[in-house]
């Protein structure tokens, strides 16, 4: 069984549908059962996409719909690896303590903070890079 790495780069912030679509594709990749290939999905939030990673989003209160924070929690619970760009977090003044997690779902692995250089290496190593 070959493992194919899918790296999903999310640049849009939570005001748009796009981050949800990116995470949906990651969870879709993890859920597909093929005879000789399995996918390992990583979602990397970069640029203003890192805003999606903040905890305490009030989408349900403000808009009455599920926000991207809940989708990130479900993705973490589905073994999707979630990464946020260190430099972009710093640009927006977001500390690691401000990032969401899925501990209430029993998931200890949270969002990984990686410098852009490392994310760039992962782009080169990935079998598929999907831009959202």
């Amino acid at each position, binding site marked *: 069984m070959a493992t194919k790495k899918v790296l999903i780069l999310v640049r849009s912030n939570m005001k748009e549908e796009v981050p949800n679509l990116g995470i949906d594709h990651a969870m879709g990749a993890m859920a597909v059962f093929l005879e000789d290939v399995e996918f390992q999905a990583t979602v990397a939030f970069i640029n203003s996409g890192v805003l999606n990673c903040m905890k305490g989003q009030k989408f349900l209160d403000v808009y009455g719909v599920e926000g991207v924070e809940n989708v990130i929690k479900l993705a973490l619970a589905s073994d999707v690896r979630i990464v946020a760009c260190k430099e972009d977090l710093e640009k927006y003044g977001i500390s690691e303590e401000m990032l969401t997690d899925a501990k209430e779902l029993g998931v200890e692995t949270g969002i990984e903070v990686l410098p852009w250089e490392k994310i760039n290496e992962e782009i080169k190593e990935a079998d598929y890079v999907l*831009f959202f």
Partner: protein
Amino acid sequence: MGTLVIGILTRPYGSTNWAFVLNLAKAALEKGHKVKIWCSGDANFILKKNQKPFAKKFNYESQIKELIEKGLEIVGCESCHLMRGIHEEEFIEGVPSRTMTWFFENIATADRVLFIGEE
């Protein structure tokens, strides 16, 4: 000959992304390659039939029909198009609705994959 899978999120007519994708698909098909296109998000709007042509403007429906005749496989994302109130029977003839499984099954065997995100 190879297989090219293109995923795209972009809305039609709002940018030239679709013009690029369809030109690329045409060139690949004419060289004998297989081309498959996955429409996600707002890209599903391009699949609606009865797009009215205007002089000297893009008309993607006619281009898609021409490419389907040349062997293009283009599909809509079921949840995305239903969310937008577009039903499969409103699609251009020859375009089916598929789930995300279709996309991952096809990229697993593709020779090249191109994914065009939102602008």
